């Protein structure tokens, strides 16, 4: 109840505040059924983004149903008690909008971007999806094939496409992060209607979701409307959480994968702390130090000065449970993988051995500041960021304050996380080699 009052006050106050600070202003509250709601009003363009994030991903799957959460995401476009098969997308596109969804290890996100006069349509569609989604046999069998084609297209028929599955299955032994979100064919084939019913009842409930509206609407009116649509959805039970703790690595794991490729590649995956922890920000900063921009360590040295690679990059997988930082390089022609790996290793060794210079830290901070300013240019992006911040970072206000956690990282922090996490004993190394080198 208190939330609602704050909301009204917030909406009024925000009008003057936007122009000065350019912070993302928002209000938030819970419906009695546990659905969390975040509203961001912005009248610049007559559009509105409607997003619903469910806190369920592939890590919540049964071990013999790998890929199920994503498969299920496909099925939730099939219709509801009031929406026939194939009509869901038609409503949106007929209204001049776009829609899509995506699934990760940790969450599933659905969204529409609509002309602002069609907000109610978005609320209706998303509430139908949450309240009584319906899946027919034709839909299940068709989407099963579609998802298998997605797997073939993105993972099997692409050079280096199997990197993530190959890394994950070696980097984790206990935790469900050991399988990729897309899953495996045998499990996709095994998934049945019974599984869908159970998954829906367990995870697709208001108390496991956040609804975000961003764009051209009136918060009071929108609150009334969304309450009409989402209010009647019953609260679900307690959400079962997979509490598997992955034990530390017992030393470096090295392996070779033969693929349909011409140029060898080196993949190094380091185990890192979970998203939102202080060390995660330091690790993420370290990844930027390594490969953000042409003057970054790996790009400048491995690719440019030493000419060992045509591509080199390093990035963190922002997982809710402890994740991975992956450094990946594709060799320049004639460069053997061990020589490429030695060059990469040298750069990580340097960060471990010497604190970075103040100017270089300053550079990282300017880059962070600029990125932060740019990422809030579109309503669809703001909606997604708010949902993500609420679900994983401890609060929607992190869209404004998370940047401070990056800016607080010191040179000592960088060196410390380099020594703690970016060490051989804490990693998986894969060589990707052309098929014809297989003995």
């Amino acid at each position: 109840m208190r939330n609602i009052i704050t909301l009204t006050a917030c909406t009024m106050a925000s009008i003057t505040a936007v122009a000065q600070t350019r912070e993302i202003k928002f209000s938030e509250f819970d419906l009695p059924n546990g659905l969390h709601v975040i509203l961001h009003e912005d009248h610049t363009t007559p559009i509105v983004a409607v997003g619903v994030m469910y806190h369920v991903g592939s890590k919540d799957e049964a071990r013999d149903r790998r890929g199920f959460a994503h498969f299920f995401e496909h099925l939730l476009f099939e219709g509801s008690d009031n929406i026939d098969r194939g009509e869901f997308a038609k409503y949106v596109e007929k209204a001049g909008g776009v829609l899509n969804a995506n699934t990760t290890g940790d969450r599933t996100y659905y969204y529409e971007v609509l002309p602002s006069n069609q907000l109610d349509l978005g609320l209706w569609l998303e509430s139908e999806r949450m309240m009584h989604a319906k899946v027919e046999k034709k839909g299940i069998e068709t989407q099963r094939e579609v998802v298998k084609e997605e797997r073939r297209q993105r993972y099997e028929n692409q050079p280096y496409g199997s990197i993530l599955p190959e890394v994950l299955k070696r980097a984790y032994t206990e935790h469900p992060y050991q399988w990729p979100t897309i899953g495996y064919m045998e499990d996709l084939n095994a998934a049945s209607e019974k599984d869908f019913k159970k998954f829906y009842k367990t995870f697709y409930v208001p108390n496991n979701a956040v609804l975000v509206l961003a764009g051209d609407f009136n918060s009071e009116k929108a609150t009334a409307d969304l309450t009409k649509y989402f209010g009647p959805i019953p609260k679900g039970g307690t959400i079962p959480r997979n509490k598997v703790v992955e034990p530390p690595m017992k030393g470096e794991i090295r392996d070779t994968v033969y693929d349909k490729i011409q140029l060898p590649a080196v993949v190094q995956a380091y185990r890192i702390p979970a998203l939102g922890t202080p060390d995660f920000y330091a690790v993420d900063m370290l990844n930027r130090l390594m490969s953000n921009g042409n003057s970054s360590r790996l790009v400048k040295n491995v690719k440019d000065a030493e000419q060992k690679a045509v591509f080199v990059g390093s990035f963190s997988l922002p997982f809710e449970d402890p994740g991975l930082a992956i450094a990946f390089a594709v060799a320049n022609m004639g460069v053997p993988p061990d020589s490429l790996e030695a060059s990469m290793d040298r750069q990580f060794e340097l960060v471990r051995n010497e604190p970075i210079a103040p100017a270089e830290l300053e550079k990282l901070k300017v880059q962070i500041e600029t990125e932060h300013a740019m990422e809030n240019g579109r309503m669809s992006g703001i909606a997604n960021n708010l949902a993500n911040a609420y679900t994983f970072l401890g609060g929607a206000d992190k869209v404004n304050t998370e940047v401070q956690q990056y800016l607080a990282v010191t040179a000592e922090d960088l060196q410390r996380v380099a020594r703690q996490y970016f060490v051989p004993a804490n990693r998986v190394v894969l060589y990707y080699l052309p098929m014809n080198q297989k003995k």
Partner: protein
Amino acid sequence: MNRQRKTMKSTLLPTLTLAATLLIPASMIAQVDRTKAPLPGPAPEVHLGEHKSLTLENGMRVIIVENHKIPIVSAQVKFDIPPILQGDVTGYQDLVGELLTSGTPRHTKEQIDELVDGLGARLNGSNDGLYASSLKKNFPQVMDLLYEVVASANFPSEEFEKAKTRAMSQVQARADDPDQIADVVGRALTYGKNYPYGEVTTEASLGKASRDDVYQYYRYFFQPKQGYLVLVGDITAAEGEAMARKYFGTWKGAEVPVTKDEQGHDVVKDLGPIIPAGKDPRRPADVRMAFVDRPGSAQSVIKVVFPVQLKPNDPMALQAQVLNTILGGGVFNARLMQNLREDKGYTYGAYSSLDADRWCGSFSAGCSVRNDVTDSAVTQIMKEITDIRNAPVKTDELALAKSYMAGSFARALEDPRTVARFALNTYLNDLPEDHYETYLKRLDAVTITDVKQAAERLLHPDSCTVLVVGDKEQVAKSLEPLSGSGRVLDYDINGDIVRLDPTEGATPAPEGMKAQDVLDAYIKAIGGKDAVEKVRDVKKVYTTNVQGMPATLTEYNKAPNKYAMEMRMGEMVLQRINYDGQKGKLTSIMGEKELEDQELEEVLGNAYAFPELHYPEMEQVARLLGVITIDGQKTYRVSVETLSGGKIDEYYDVETGLKLRRRENQMQEGGGWIQVITDYSAYSPEGGVLFPHTLTQRGGMDMVLTATEISVNKGIPDSEFSTE
């Protein structure tokens, strides 16, 4: 309904309290009718947004869009550069962008990289300009650097060599990437490899590219008179104008001396002639089934492609976009997506594009599918292209496409760069001033008839290339019935044909035998080189039937390469072609016109009395493809590739050496190609040389030509060939 009421009951009380707190009128909490989609409110107005434009004294145009929503400013510098042929150094243009930011007299690459990253900026080059952006507070320094790079990039040799090596590695990597192969070969087959858009970068072509190619390209094309500066974001119009004047106001561009070649092209030192796009690419004669083998593929990548003559300022351009949206342009409800994904489950996504372009537009439709449904998927794609051409689209399909496009237009305006892009497009594509202001109104006015007309003009399912990249052994055979010729043609990853005719039953030619040996044998068979070379002129008169009426065809050849042809019916001249060795003229009942492009090339093929002696001069390449049997005779099959990528097949009798058949693709009236087969028989001597006296033609117009007169060296006056 039962379920709904039950649900309502459990949450009714909290909902009421909630609404009361907000002081919402009681009417608004009435139970919502979930069975129907809610009706939309009044449509919001879409505002295009303002831009300011000005032209600097040096001719550079400046476009400024003010938008203070986020503290970011971007600058785009763009030069209006037409597509030009890269020829044997194809790929050098891809290096321009990277090398632009690789050094100036003031800064090394390393220093530029440090500067850009230190400002948290982006600075990305391309072969026609650069894009930069940063926080407002850092933008003055970014502009400083942007100007420095545009005006004085010096392309250090060392950086060129590094970039070239990486580019060559990437060409190697392409060999295993099915999407890249489909893209590169797809373009080659859409436009032809002699058109700038169809040229293919190879390790060999990159190997020949030099630093000077790239540097001189930059100097020649990066000129203020064809330049645009686009500033967008957290900047006032006044600030933007001041910056534009400060940096680019007095910029002159490099002085690049040029000479002219025989064709009138500018020739730039160390780069060579600047050759623009030539004649418009043509579609294949029928459905050309092309295959690139990638053994072990998990999927086939399918692309149906053909070139389209559609410019952005074509009155039909908008109708074309509506048409494509219905067919497969990104909408989930598009026909390709609904059919191939939602109904059949063949693919993760099927799409089409119908792109207007100032030089040459293109159509493409395709998807990735598992191997065993490849032929079914091709069949369904072709069916959708055919259906949308043959039958009117449905009212609700049209409404959905129009709503979707209107919505996309509004959504795009969320990004302030869109307004700038509109302004830039208006200049570049010569669009009406109010093109974008009237967009929604014009879109709303598009009718079912408009879409049908666009489909009839622009879609050609009978005359296209179907490209499949996949596992040949598993897939190719099933595609044969879908090919116009019944054959699947093999292409390599560079878009070159591997074997012309794998299934026709050709056996290899004898070891070591070349096309030239076959041609030599033919010349020998008709009288020998001496006799043939003594022929100064020939006149051939044939009688035939045209639509049941007797007609006469007369051909004249005079050394070195003059040619004339006249078709008469009684006293009436149906058609006459004169070619004086340089220019060609067509006279018909429709009037006179000068021959150009493809038509001229076809005439050129007839200009020599004995073209078999002159393939090299005509820049035609003859290849011996093997021995095959036609009409019971064993023949050598020789393929002759013409300058524009056309192919002619000739069949020479293994025993006698005489030419028995010629097979070529001829251009059809109104576009498209048709395969024409001519059989030669009744060889007998005239003036010491054997000429065929019966020509049987099939395809196009079927007819039998019977020679009534063939006279050699009777002295044909030049006036017979005049194009005046």
